[in-house]
């Protein structure tokens, strides 16, 4: 029998094939990502499913590391489970740097009567209060290039941003007042920054020159848009390598100009509005209209007035450190969306998304070069120094829902994402997970090349927040907030290959 006859016979038999079971192409891609998890994600094997464990407070107190299940190859060390560690510990920043950190500075997402900012000794776990009260819902915390700490309030359109000098020696500061009348008991070391505006602080991306990207954690409602993306350009940009400031009077964030993101460049920058949320756009200055107001500007209201682009609950953001080292601006963030609580038939099935935002080079991002655009009777001021671009990276699903925090993993270049979904309320409850996602590769799309589950909680009441890597990308620090113990738990997860 010659070859063409063999081919014909096999084809005929294949056409009549009986399949015992078969994975579709998407399942194959998922399986191959798991099978290669060591090289792609740095773990021996990822988790196949979310944990359904629901430990008691006593069990967690006996072994705080047991509050998570980790992928094979990873190890857990308890950094702190101190009784005075905030019970809603959220974002974390390593101090004095991520290369040789001795401490972490953490936000506690509580009310004005609760501790807001603490320092935690990484070696001993001892927690001490920096801002002991007066902040409402402290969520983001960042280290500035000039050596200070930023801490923001996730508090509607009136959330404030504070700057802290000498965080290892500043203690028990209390915030009082509101809006422009905000003051602190130690103004030399903790100060309100009114000129960056107010919004619900969570996502922050701070460039080495002091340019500040700010995301408003807001959901759409009653026809109003969700949260927007804003940018503060300091009047005096920071010079990389300059010595740390010794007075908050010298903070680059004391003065500058604010711009808001508006998707759409087609037709002379006119095709903005609902329906255009991806792709390229422009920066529109926030203070060029009388109805926008003066400092401290409510950026949420300004975004509505100025027809800014909005998203469903923009939360955390993290810089792409690889591109940053090459002088380019790219940060990725989360839009949390709304999952489907099993207790409600009216859930959105909007499982959230991860996006990445580009804004030219670091140098260009600090420039201002304006022109005006008149639409009807309204005059907008456009900053043409860069061409900002927003593109999706990950779309959520029922198993990977409502991603909240995000961390860039140095070395691997992956994105670690913390779920804050409704899994614990599903008819078969599952815990929230932490995922590792590849960045977009050389393929033609702009989306992540794959994600796997690397950590799962063992407490159906808890949420993981504030994950951050050290400079090597091999140690990941994460908070397990509102766990059953009533106090905070911060873990160090190592073993990433």
């Amino acid at each position, binding site marked *: 029998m010659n070859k063409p006859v063999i081919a014909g016979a096999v084809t005929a*038999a294949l056409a009549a094939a009986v399949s015992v079971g078969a994975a579709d192409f998407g399942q194959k891609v998922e399986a191959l990502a798991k099978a*290669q998890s060591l090289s792609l994600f740095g773990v021996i*094997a990822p988790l196949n499913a979310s944990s359904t464990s629901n430990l008691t407070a006593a069990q967690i107190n006996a072994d705080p590391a047991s509050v998570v299940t980790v992928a094979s*190859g990873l190890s857990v060390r308890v950094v702190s489970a101190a009784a005075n560690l905030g019970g809603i510990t959220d974002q974390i920043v390593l101090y004095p740097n991520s290369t040789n950190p001795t401490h972490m500075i953490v936000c506690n997402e509580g009310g004005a009567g609760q501790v807001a900012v603490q320092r935690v000794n990484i070696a001993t776990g001892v927690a001490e209060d920096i801002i002991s009260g007066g902040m409402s819902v402290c969520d983001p915390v960042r280290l500035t290039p000039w050596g200070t700490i930023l801490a923001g309030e996730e508090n509607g359109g009136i959330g404030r941003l504070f700057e802290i000098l000498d965080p290892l020696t500043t203690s028990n500061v209390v915030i009082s007042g509101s809006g422009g009348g905000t003051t602190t008991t130690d103004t030399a070391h903790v100060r309100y920054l009114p000129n960056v505006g107010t919004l619900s602080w969570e996502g922050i991306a701070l460039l080495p020159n002091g340019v500040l990207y700010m995301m408003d954690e807001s959901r759409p409602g009653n026809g109003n848009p969700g949260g927007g993306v804003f940018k503060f350009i300091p009047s005096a940009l920071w010079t990389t390598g300059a010595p740390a400031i010794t007075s908050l009077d010298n903070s680059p964030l004391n003065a500058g100009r604010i711009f808001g993101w508006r998707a759409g460049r087609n037709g002379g920058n006119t095709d903005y509005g609902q329906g255009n949320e991806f792709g390229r756009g422009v920066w529109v200055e926030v203070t060029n209209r009388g109805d926008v107001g003066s400092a401290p500007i409510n950026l949420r209201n300004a975004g509505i007035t100025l027809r800014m682009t909005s998203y469903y609950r923009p939360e955390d953001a993290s810089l792409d450190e690889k591109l940053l080292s090459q002088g380019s601006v790219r940060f990725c963030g989360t839009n949390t969306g709304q999952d489907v609580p099993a207790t409600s038939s009216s859930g959105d099935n909007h499982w959230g998304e991860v996006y990445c935002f580009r804004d030219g080079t670091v140098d260009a991002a600090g420039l201002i070069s304006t022109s005006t655009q008149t639409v009807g009777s309204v005059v907008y001021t456009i900053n043409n120094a860069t061409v900002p671009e927003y593109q999706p990276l990950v779309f959520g699903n029922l198993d990977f829902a409502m991603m909240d925090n995000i961390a860039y993993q140095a070395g691997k270049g992956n994105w670690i994402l913390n779920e804050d979904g409704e899994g614990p309320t599903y008819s078969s409850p599952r815990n929230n997970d932490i995922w590792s996602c590849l960045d977009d590769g050389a393929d033609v799309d702009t989306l992540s090349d794959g994600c796997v589950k690397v950590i799962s909680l063992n407490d159906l009441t808890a949420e993981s927040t504030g994950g951050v890597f050290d400079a090597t990308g091999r140690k990941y620090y994460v908070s397990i907030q509102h766990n059953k113990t009533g106090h905070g738990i911060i873990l160090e997860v190592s*073993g990433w*290959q």
Partner: protein
Amino acid sequence: MNNTNLLRVTCVAAMLGAGLVPAAAQAAAVSATTGIFGLSSSSNLTLSNDFYFTDASTPFESLFDAGATLPSYNLGTTQNGNTSLASLGPTFGGPEPVTEAGATNWGSGSSTVQWSLDWVATGAGKAFIDVDYFYSVTLQSLLAGEQALASSFISLLRDGSQQKSESLHAFSNAEGNDFDNAHLLLNFDVLEGDSGAFTITMASNARAVPEPATMLLMGAGMLGMGVTAVRRRRLGS
């Protein structure tokens, strides 16, 4: 420093060099996976009577089973930077198995599934069975001179004697990553009423193998520690 302390320091240094005492340096990380995406056959064959022999082993645990249902094993430990993983189970909620093994440093793991099915020909002519499988092996974080093993294996036999195809991937002393999605396709002629059995064997193994020099260094360290202990007892008495 007295002689006893000098000897103790030397021994610890030797054992650090051998990797017995956790040190800052990373060492081998190894993983292997073999799985089946799907199994299909020509329409003139009926398949039945699935039977599984399964085994998963690490230095700490071992599980073995035989039966009509594929079990799920997940043996895994991580202590002092040493990971040992051996797991197996069904893929995608179906009957198709997957085996996984992984290790870091001094860990090791292996898992094996032997899946047999009876076949009966319901019509004469050409028949086939097609196993859509995937495998992956990875070695990374090797120290200079360090050796490690990761292997994935799958084979398909008809009636216990005709080995139509197999696949084996392994590395020994170089970092690498390989994966594939391929098919084991077996064609044969049948008459109506013919019968037999297919056997699909798949295995994954992962192990970091100490290099000979490391073993000598470790042996020297342990010998030294023994001598130290003897000297201390003598001094104590």
